[in-house]
């Protein structure tokens, strides 16, 4: 069993991570770290490797080389305890992935009951609590298909929160949403950040990243090309980031 990290150590750290899909080198020596309570935004063009980097943190992709430590778990090692890792890490996907045959309440209570052995009544209280957090308490007994996209994504965030993760990963969570629905999801994430949740997010919402992120990691061709505080979005130093933020990506 791996040790949990002490407060001074980063919650997530990647060191020289390598990953190829066949001949395509997707991650070419990626390194970054996320401290407790920090919000890190991964940005970059499609195909720059940002989503792959995020998925490596929760071991949805196995890396070919390098070191990944998440909440004390050595994620790069083949013997990593996946279920322990995933109790510490929450992940929210672009396509929500709520379980369509279960009500919102059942979606949320399933993992706490099945994985942590929580009593049903306790899990139902928890479901109500996390739904209040995302502003969906009235949807407790609805099925996912009865919700709008924005509501489904908020429910998916609530489902993740119910496992009380130490770090949350967001993989382009607003990319599938109509512009008028992204706001309600971003507001929930903002509130989480304000509550001190450690977060890593892949996002195309530059305005949002600028407002919420403590640090920006700009990826380009599988490498961390430029990194720094949110201010690098307004005063980039590399031509690639200048071009990226200059092509209309920096809205609002």
């Amino acid at each position, binding site marked *: 069993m791996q040790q949990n990290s002490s407060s001074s150590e980063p919650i997530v750290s990647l060191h020289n991570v390598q990953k190829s899909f066949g001949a395509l080198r997707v991650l070419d020596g990626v390194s970054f770290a996320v401290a407790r309570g920090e919000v890190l935004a991964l940005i970059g063009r499609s195909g720059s490797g940002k989503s792959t980097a995020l998925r490596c943190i929760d071991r*949805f992709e196995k890396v070919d080389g390098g070191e990944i430590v998440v909440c004390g778990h050595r994620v790069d090692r083949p013997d990593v305890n996946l279920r322990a890792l*995933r109790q510490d*890490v929450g992940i929210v*996907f672009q396509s929500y*992935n709520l*379980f*369509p045959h279960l009500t919102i309440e059942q979606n949320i209570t399933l993992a706490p009951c099945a*994985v942590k052995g929580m009593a049903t009544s306790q899990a139902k209280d928890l479901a109500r609590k996390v739904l209040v957090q995302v502003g969906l308490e009235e949807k407790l007994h609805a099925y996912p298909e009865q919700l709008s996209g924005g509501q489904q994504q908020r429910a*998916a965030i609530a489902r993740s929160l119910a*496992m009380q993760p130490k770090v949350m990963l967001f993989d382009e969570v607003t990319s599938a949403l109509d512009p008028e629905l992204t706001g309600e999801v971003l507001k929930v994430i903002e509130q989480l950040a304000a509550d001190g949740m450690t977060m890593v997010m892949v996002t195309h919402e530059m305005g949002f990243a600028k407002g919420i992120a403590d640090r920006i990691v700009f990826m380009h061709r599988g490498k961390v090309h430029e990194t720094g505080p949110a201010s690098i979005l307004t005063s980039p130093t590399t031509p690639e980031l200048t071009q990226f933020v200059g092509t209309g990506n920096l809205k609002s």
Partner: protein
Amino acid sequence: MSLQLDFPAVLERWPSFLAGAVLTLELAFFATVLGALLGTLAAVGRGTHNSLIAGACKVYVETIRNTPLLVQIFLVYFGLASLGLKYSAFTVAVAALTINVGAYTAEIMRAGFEAIPRGQIEAAEGLALSRFQIYWHIILLPAVEKVYPALTSQFVLLMLASSVCSQISAEELTAVANYIQSDTYRAFETYIIVAVLYVILSLVMRAGFWGLGLLLFPRRRRLGTPL
């Protein structure tokens, strides 16, 4: 040319018809329950990374799907007998029908499993659910719901196909009919009645599956739409 039908002469044997129909339904019930279990396990087995298990499941499914049911029944019947094992015709019939319908169920369930979006499984893995929990809570019911019409047709077909169990003298509906027609010399009337009884049994089964569907898919009960 005149057709003379004498139904009363045959219908007075109604207790035998009824007993045969009940036995057919019992055969279908046990083979459906056991075959659904066997087929689901075989479908899971075919999807595992263990090539030995996956291979064994594939051989089972393909062997059964490419041989006649009657031959399978004889193989079980005479196979058990030559091993010195004595079972009732009913038990042998249930075993053979289970093995048969299990293979078809496996193929249908495999289609159901493959229709589950990858994202569902990733979401469940992300919540730290175990492999078994993912199959049980996330994959199984939506997969069954997706292929439910195909599954239920297969089980009704199994009930109809159970008529060949008359060949090993299981006292099901067709076997009963064979006795009655040879006794009364009223073959046409007998088989008309038997055909009607099979239609009724089919309707009974379809009604049962409809009710079971309401139980299994509460979402559909509320929203009315299949998954």
